């Protein structure tokens, strides 16, 4: 029960964070909103008892990637955007309502066709989110894709060095 209440609170705050990121004019404020959103997503993982994934979410996204974002904002000296245009409430409400209608309709269609995934039990979700099960699939089942991730990361390192070199090579 507590987990359900928590889910709705976290989901609301996550959406609010995402909206705040889009709406705010100052890039650093946008980044802060995004961090709030990422924390809420980590909280959502927690409500599924996937503790390992939740902590990794904070560690990688909030702890590493957003630091890079902040660095870039500071390095490029991005000033606050000018108020280009007043936000039009009528259009906004229209967008929200039509998106809601679209999602409801597609839910009805999808459930009548029977293509929606079966909801998993909380236990199954918890089992798939622990470090041990993750290790089994990562290092045994998906060993080749795992090595390819390594190559991808190598490419990212080399790309970063190339981009920040003073003279083109």
């Amino acid at each position, binding site marked *: 029960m507590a987990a359900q209440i928590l889910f709705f609170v976290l989901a609301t705050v996550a959406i609010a964070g995402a909206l705040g990121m889009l709406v705010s004019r100052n890039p*650093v404020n946008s980044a802060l909103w995004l961090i709030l959103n990422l924390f809420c997503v980590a909280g959502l993982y927690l409500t599924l008892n996937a*503790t390992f994934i939740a902590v990794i979410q904070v*560690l990688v996204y909030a702890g590493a990637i957003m*630091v890079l974002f902040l660095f870039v904002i500071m390095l490029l000296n991005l000033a606050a955007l000018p108020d280009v245009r007043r936000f039009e409430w009528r259009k906004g409400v229209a967008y929200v309502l039509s998106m809601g209608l679209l999602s409801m309709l597609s839910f009805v269609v999808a459930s009548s066709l029977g293509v929606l995934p079966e909801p998993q039990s909380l236990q199954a979700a918890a089992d798939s989110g622990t*470090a041990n099960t993750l290790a089994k699939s990562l290092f045994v089942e998906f060993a080749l894709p795992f090595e390819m991730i390594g190559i991808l990361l190598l490419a990212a390192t080399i790309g970063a060095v190339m981009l920040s070199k003073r003279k083109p090579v």
Partner: protein
Amino acid sequence: MELAWYWTALIAFVIVQFLLISASVLVYAERKVSGYMQNRPGPNRVGPFGFLQPFADVVKLVFKENIVPVLANPFVHSLAPMLMVVIAMGAGALIPFAHNVVIADMDVSVLVLLALTSISVYGVTLAGWSSNSKYSLLGGLRSSAQMISYELSMGLAVLSVVLIAGSLSLTEIVEDQAGGWGLLGWNIFRNPIGAILFIVTAFAETNRAPFDLPEAEQELVGGYHTEYSGMKFGMFFLAEYVNFFIASFVIVTLFFGGYMLPFESVLLGAFPALVDSLWLTVLQLGTILVKAGFFAFVFIWVRWTLPRFKYTQLMTLGWKYLLPIALANMLLVALGVALLS
């Protein structure tokens, strides 16, 4: 151990107060120790032996004006010091202080600790950015670059401990060190390189000398807290001391047997009455306090002994020496675990 939420809240409150008081004791200790190291008495006017000096400092800070620089972002300017304190104190919930005495005991507590460390970078970065001052921004950038550089080696040092213990829970890591003859089960003996790596990176993560580049007075004035005054500055000060106290606890927990008494198995064999008794808990609390106190002293000792690194030296050390050593150590420990099992 399931506790009602108000008991948890009460214990958490006690721990927070304990951290506050120990921070003031550490401030006093630092000034006294540095005084003796420089052949002067240190604070000796307020209270017996100057013991009330830190409390007088706090009162002074409360009565100071809070100055927000022109064009600074006031919200972020107050958020940054709060963030530093909250993160530093939150980490206190994860430390096992004695057998079954830990506020938050989860199966991934080491990772939570690392996640909290990685978030504390924001405090520094945002403080530097929001102050709208060149010194602050440069100090904040430098400091966050330093913290993320050393975070990697710290993560790898923790990884080598996790390899040995086979668990991400701090309590299980402590229990894992119970084996061996008395002290030899401690991770400092099983993984000495990892221990040294972790201690060095802990100094860098807490921005303590010789890694106190962010507040290198001679070049950056006050670093990221140049533009902070009054209680907001006090928060950074508090966070620094809480941080290195917590870091001492973590060093002890990961590498020096945590709350375990030296030769605990021998002692328990000689006095079976002690097993699961309240006295054992008290003894363990005392043990971890003595051990952590020793490392807190080491933090102070090093600060007043070693000169500060240059920034180039700091980055070179982090990336070209510590990171490769940490990677090699991790593989070495893995081989050791494989051979011994």
